[in-house]
């Protein structure tokens, strides 16, 4: 019997620790806040002439377009993702095992790649319509791909996996039980699904749809290829076509208003997620066996989505590569791959670590201010890449110049030339701002699954502070951390605008290469780097759903 021999001390959570965490979080917020400050300062000093032109001739249509696009894609992705998630998580049909995993693969395919493939294939001059005209004389009944419907369809196919992932998590943890409960109360299977299962999964679905909406708002590559005018493309045009950075930043401000709205939705939905029960794997209900026509329908549905969103585009890329681009495969190519992988890995590591830090700060010092700061730090996700990049490059250049003049004043002409903006710091900071949310979400939900009671149990058994983290949290957070790292890795691999603007000298990546090729209209030659991006992005995406059901 050990006599209690420890010292009396003041209770644990003190004001000093709260202040420290507040400051730490404030620093972590900077990469996301500085571009916002830059935007704000532009709004406060408007260029009236350009702005009034935009307001009169451009803004109404562009805002309408943006709204239509966001609503269309979010709804489309929500419906598609939810249906697919239900079918693969609760039912059994031929090919289910394969599709369950395969339907995630479009994550590895950037929207802008899917865009140019779709247009290349389905446009009037493309192979499909040409063949139809040859055989049937007319291809008029094929809906035009270069239309609002087309861009919505392509973005939906590209982004539905976000909803799919989250809805699956919802259905796997609660769906079957809820449906059985409802059926026992007299509802038919369909009604049960509609009235009970779906509402229970709603927070997940809404969270996924909100992510989709933010991605859509920020998209630049795909809508450019479609020549569909949204706020991001207009921003770019105002900047470089009308030579007004100011107007571009003001448009960014308008864009951010939309982002705020979507963000509010997402936060509300995520609040609902907090109270969801954790999974009880011992209660896995058996799957609904689909037979006959239904089974065929399910298989076809999954096959069509997989085909359109991944298989056929990749096939087309492969064909183009085989046809054309073997000439491009040289040492320089592996340099591109290397650059892409190095950037993606660094970002993944930094962001996973930061996510863990932020999640812990929120857990232990969760005052209102802290929660607000966490929200701010993870809001960079919705800021369009171009805005973020310039919003970070410019201040860094400013800092660099200031430091440079100090150095020169101090050391005279022999002072070394600083080039902060030419280092990895800039691009990694921009990635940090943009992708912290991507890493933070899975880590936060993983940490939330570790209840306060588990913490207290460990503490009462002698494992507090660092011991607690090492022996309990780390093992339990392993999957969440891996998920975070993987998602960030894939996103950075696909990322284009930030890399384009903020990369160091000579650090061309695969995405940059695709941009160069598509901007020249050499789409066939863009196939090789595009395929490389998809292949590299595949490996992590495949790891995301191993046999079990561990998701996010």
């Amino acid at each position: 019997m050990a006599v209690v021999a420890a010292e009396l001390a003041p209770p644990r959570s003190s004001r000093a620790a709260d202040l420290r965490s507040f400051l730490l979080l404030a620093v972590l917020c900077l990469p996301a806040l500085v571009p916002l400050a830059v935007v704000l300062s532009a709004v406060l000093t408007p260029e009236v002439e350009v702005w009034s032109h935009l307001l009169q001739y451009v803004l109404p249509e562009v805002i309408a377009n943006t709204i239509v696009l966001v609503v269309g894609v979010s709804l489309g992705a929500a419906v598609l993702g939810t249906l697919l998630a239900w079918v693969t998580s609760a039912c059994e049909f031929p090919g289910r095992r394969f599709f369950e995993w395969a339907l995630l693969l479009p994550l590895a395919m950037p929207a802008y790649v899917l865009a140019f493939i779709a247009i290349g294939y389905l446009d009037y001059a493309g192979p499909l319509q040409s063949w139809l005209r040859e055989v049937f004389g007319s291809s008029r009944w094929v809906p035009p791909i270069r239309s609002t419907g087309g861009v919505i369809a392509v973005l939906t196919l590209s982004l539905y996996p976000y909803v799919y992932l989250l809805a699956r998590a919802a259905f796997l943890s609660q769906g079957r039980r809820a449906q059985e409960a409802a059926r026992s109360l007299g509802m038919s299977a369909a009604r049960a699904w509609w009235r009970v299962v779906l509402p229970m999964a709603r927070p997940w679905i809404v969270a996924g749809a909100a992510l989709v909406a933010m991605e859509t708002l920020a998209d630049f590559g795909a809508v450019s290829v479609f020549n569909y005018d949204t706020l991001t493309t207009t921003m770019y045009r105002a900047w470089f076509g009308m030579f007004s950075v100011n107007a571009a930043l003001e448009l960014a401000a308008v864009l951010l208003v939309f982002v705020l709205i979507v963000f509010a939705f997402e936060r509300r939905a995520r609040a609902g997620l907090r109270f969801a029960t954790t999974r009880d794997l011992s209660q896995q209900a058996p799957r609904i066996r689909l037979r006959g026509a239904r089974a065929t329908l399910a298989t076809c549905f999954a096959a069509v989505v997989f085909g359109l969103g991944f298989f056929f585009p990749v096939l087309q890329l492969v064909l183009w590569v085989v046809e054309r681009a073997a000439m491009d495969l040289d040492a320089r190519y592996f340099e591109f791959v290397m650059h892409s992988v190095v950037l993606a890995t660094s970002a993944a590591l930094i962001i996973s670590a930061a996510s863990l830090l932020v999640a812990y700060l929120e857990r232990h010092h969760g005052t209102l201010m802290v929660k607000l700061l966490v929200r701010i730090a993870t809001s960079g996700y919705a800021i369009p890449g171009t805005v973020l990049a310039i919003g970070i490059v410019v201040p860094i250049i400013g800092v660099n110049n200031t430091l440079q003049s100090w150095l020169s004043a101090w050391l005279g002409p022999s002072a070394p030339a600083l080039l902060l903006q030419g280092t990895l710091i800039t691009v990694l900071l921009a990635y940090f701002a943009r992708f912290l949310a991507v890493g933070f979400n899975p880590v936060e939900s993983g940490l939330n699954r570790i209840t306060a009671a588990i913490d207290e149990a460990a503490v009462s058994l002698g494992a507090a502070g660092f011991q607690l983290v090492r022996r309990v949290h780390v093992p339990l957070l392993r999957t969440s951390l891996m998920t975070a790292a993987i998602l960030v890795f894939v996103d950075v691999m696909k990322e284009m605008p930030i890399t384009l603007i903020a990369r160091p000298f000579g650090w061309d990546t695969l995405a940059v290469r695709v941009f160069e090729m598509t901007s020249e209209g050499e789409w066939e030659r863009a196939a090789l780097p595009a395929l490389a991006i998809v292949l590299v992005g595949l490996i992590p995406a495949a790891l995301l759903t191993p046999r079990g059901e561990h998701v996010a």
Partner: protein
Amino acid sequence: MYSSRNEQLIKPMFDRYTQETGQAIRFVTDDAGPLIERLAAEGKNSPADILLTVDAGQLWQAAERGLLQPIESEIIKTNIPAHLRDPQSRWFGLSVRARTIVYSTERVDPQDLSGYEDLADERWRGRLCLRTSKSVYNQSLVAMMIAAHGEERTEEIVRGWVANLATEPFANDTRLMEAIVAGQCDVGIVNSYYFGRLVRDKPDLPIKLFWATLAGEGVHVNVSGAGVTAAAPRAEAARKFLEWLTEAEAQAMFAGANLEYPANPNVAPDPLVAAWGTFQPSPLNVAQAGELQAAAVRLMDRAGFR
């Protein structure tokens, strides 16, 4: 070097120069806009010596913002004609491209074609394909039209174009030409080298260039050009390199790589390019493309040209 001209079009030349002189060249490629922003923000501490762009308007913009320094070079003055150079010697063109009409040989009689303005005529209703107004090439074209006709008339013309469109504007010239071949439309406006690339691979396509006229006076041309940056740490070496670029060998490589016309009139174009025939370029100074670009963009907005 900061370059908005794509890597594969310039690297071979850089390698050649390094081979010949031992001078290494490092470069970053990006759209001109971000490059110019970066130059401006970097100010005195910019590591860039040269700015290379694909459009005169972009060069004009950079010069206006004080990002380029004037260079006095007899060699450049000799090699590059005046209307392809900045009046204040801050930049000059290296290669010339024409933006002109393409037409379907199956459905269009070249006799019916004349000027860019003509495409606004009713008889082309539903037969015209255009690239998006976001393209800097179209912006320059419209800018030059404003220089020639004034804003009011140009707006009329552009409205006419929009009314004649067979389909939504294309994101690039190549797709536009494919649409013409497929029969979706009959005429369009493209850069000469895109046409060149297309027919180089498939010479039997039923599509041809027509040398249009701007205000009756000549084909709208634009340049890919360069200038020395205002803060260049290695200005002398930069000047030497640029001078080398205006010489015969480099000119042939530079223009030939992209099926363009060398700016240096003494250098013959690539035989493939020469086969399209000669044309009279519009005499307006290309700098005006930059001056009027913002107005052109606004005009296209007003006219509903997406």
